[in-house]
C-alpha cells in the first residue's frame, strides 16, 4: 500500500494540483480544506507519511496546527512536513521546524521532484 500524504489546503485548484503531483510520485492522497477539519483529522486519524500544510487556512491557521498538534504529538515524529505559504518572511521563520518550506507560487514540477526525493524507495 502506498504512503499516505495529507494535503491541507483551502484552495480547491491548488489542492488538486498538489494532489496530482503527489499522486504522480506514488502517494495516496487525502485532502482537507480547512483548519477545523484538519485539527479533527490530525487528532483522530492515522499519522500520514507526509503532510503538505498551507499556513493560511480558515478557522485554524496552519501555523497553529503545526505548533499545537503536529509538533506536540509523538505520532507525527516520523512524518515529513512541508509548509506552503505566500509570505516568504513567514516561511523563513519555520525553516527550523519543518522539512521544507515552499513559497507560493508552487510549481507542480518542483513539488513532484521534491516529494519524489522524500518518498522511500519501495
Amino acid at each position, binding site marked *: 500500500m502506498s504512503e499516505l500524504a495529507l494535503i491541507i489546503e483551502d*484552495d480547491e485548484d*491548488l489542492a488538486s*494540483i498538489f494532489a496530482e503531483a503527489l499522486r*504522480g510520485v506514488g502517494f495516496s492522497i487525502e485532502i482537507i480544506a480547512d483548519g477545523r477539519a484538519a485539527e479533527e483529522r490530525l487528532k483522530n486519524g492515522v499519522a500520514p507519511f507526509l503532510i503538505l500544510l498551507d499556513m493560511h487556512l480558515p478557522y485554524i491557521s496552519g501555523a497553529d496546527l503545526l505548533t499545537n498538534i503536529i509538533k506536540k504529538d509523538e505520532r507525527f515524529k516520523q512524518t515529513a512536513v512541508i509548509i506552503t505559504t*505566500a509570505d516568504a518572511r513567514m516561511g*523563513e521563520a519555520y525553516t527550523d521546524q519543518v522539512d521544507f518550506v515552499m513559497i*507560493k*507560487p508552487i510549481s*507542480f514540477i518542483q513539488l513532484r521532484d521534491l516529494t519524489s526525493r522524500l518518498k522511500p524507495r519501495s
Partner: protein
Amino acid sequence: MTSFSRFLAISTADPDDTRRRRILNILVASIGILSLLAILVSLAAVFFERLRWENVNLIIIGSSVTILGMLIVYLINIFWSGKVAATVFLVFLTVVFAFSDTPEQVAGGRSLFGFAIPIIMASILLTPWFSFVFSTISGLIISVIALSISHFPNLPAVIGFFVIALVSWLSARSLEQALRELRQINANLDQVVIERTGALAESLERERIEAGRSQAILNSIADGVVVFDTEWNAIMANPALRSMLDLPLDQIVDKNFRDLIAHPHLSSRSRNLLQAMMEHDTQPPSFRIEWDQKTLSISAAQVYDYSKDRYTNIGTVTVFRDFTREAEVEKLKSTFVAIVSHELRTPLNAILGYAEMFKEEVYGPMNDKQVNMAERIMKNTQRLLGLINDLLDQAQMEAGKLTIQMGPIRPAELLENIHSVMDKIAYDKGLKLTSEIDDQLPEVLNGDAARLQQIMVNLVNNGIKFTSHGTVHIRLFSLYAGKWGIEVSDTGSGIPESEIPYIFDTFRQVEGTATRVHGGFGLGLSIVKQLVGLMNGEITVKSIMNVGSKFTIALPLVIPEQSPQKWSIG
C-alpha cells in the same frame, strides 16, 4: 531761588552770548545788592547816631548812582545787546576806578590794581581779545592822570596791564575752546541719542508687527502647535490644537505636559511614546499617537537660542497633525495589499500548476504545439506573478513595512540559490550565467538572505532581459575596509548615458517603449535600490552602449559574532 534764577536768565540762540550775558547779570545783580546794602548800612549808622550824615552822604550818592548804572546795564543786557551792556558796564567800572582815589594813587599807587578787574572781566564778558582793549584804555587813563599831575606815566603798570590782558586772553580763549568742544560733544551725543531712539522705536514697531504676524500665522495654521519650556510647561498653544484635542486652551497652556499625558483619551501605547519623547533629548522625527478616535502625528523639535556665542536649549516646539484619514487610508491600503497578495497569487498559482501538468503530460501525451502553448502559459503566468510581487514589495516599502532581518548568510549559498532559480531562464535565452566569489570575502557574513537574493534575482533578471547573447556574470567580493560588494554584469545592449540617472526611478524603463519589448513595470531596479538603501548600502551602475552594463552594490561588511564553524554546515 527760582524767580532769582529767572531774573538772571537770558535765552539767546548763541550759547556763548547767553553765558556772557548771564555772568554779566550775576555781576550786575551782585554789585547792585552790595550798593543797596551800603546804603542801608550807612542809613542805619546815621539812624543809630554812630556816624553823621556828612560822613555817609557820598557813599549813599555813589551807591545810588551805582544802582542806577547797574539797572541800565541790566536793561540793556536783557532787552538789547549783551556786548553793549558789557562794554557800558566795564567802562563804568574803569571810570569808577579812575576817580575812586587820589590822582597819585590812581597813576602809580594802590588803585592801579583796580584796573585789573575790568581787564580780566573784558575777556570773560566780551570776546577774549577785548582784555587788550581795556588794558589800553586803562594804560591811557593812568598815563593821562600821571601827566596831569606832572608825573611820568607808570610804564611797569602799563606793561603789567598788558601782561594781565595776555593771561586773560589766553585763559578765556582756552575756556571758550573747551566749551565749544564740550558743546560739540553734546551735540554729537544728542544726535546719537536721537538716532538710537529712532532705531529703537523702529525695531520695537517692527517687532510688534512681526509678533502680530507670527501670532496670526500660528493662529491660522491647520496643525496644532504647542510650545513647552525646558520643564515641559506649555507656554503657548494655537487654536488648531484646541479643536484637534477638543480641549479648552486653558487646559493646555500653563499646564505641564505630564497632565496632558495623563488624559484618559490617550491609549497606553501613545502615553508611552509621549513619555519617551519627554524623557529623551533626541526625538524621532515624528510618531503617531491615538487620541480618542483620532490618529495624530507628532513631531517635536528642540528650540535653541543663540546668544553669547553658544546655543541654549529654551524648550520644545511640538506640532500635532491630524492623521486620522491618512491612517485609515494606510490601513485600507495594507488590507488591500494583503488581499491582492493572496487573491491574485493563488489563482495564478493554479494556472501555473495546470499548465505544468499539461506540459508534463500528466493526463496523457500532448503534441509539440500543445506543449509549447503550455510553456507559454507558464512563462506568462510567471511574468504576471513577478509583477505582482514587485507591486507588493513597492507597496510595502511605501508603507514602511518592508524591513531588513539580519542573520548569518553564506555567500556561496546565495550564489547556489541564484543559479538554481536563474540558470534555466538564462539557458532558455541562450545565455550563460556565471559567478565567482573573491577569496578575500569571509565565508559567513551578516545580512538578510531573502532580500539579498531578491536583489540579485532582480539584477540578473534585468541582465538577462537586456542581453541577447553572451554572459551574465555575478561576482561577490571584498570591496574595501568595512564593505563587501555584489557585482552583476552583462554583455547586453547597455544603457544610454542620458538615462542612467533615472533607471532607479519607480515605473521607469529606458526609452519608455521598453515595456512593450521587455515587459515589466520598471519596478525591479527601483526595488533593488530601495532594498540596498534599507541595508545601508549603495548601488552604482556603469554602462557602455552595445558592450554591456555593470551594477555594483556596496554593503556594510558585518561578520556575525558567532564562530563561523557553527554556520559552515549547510
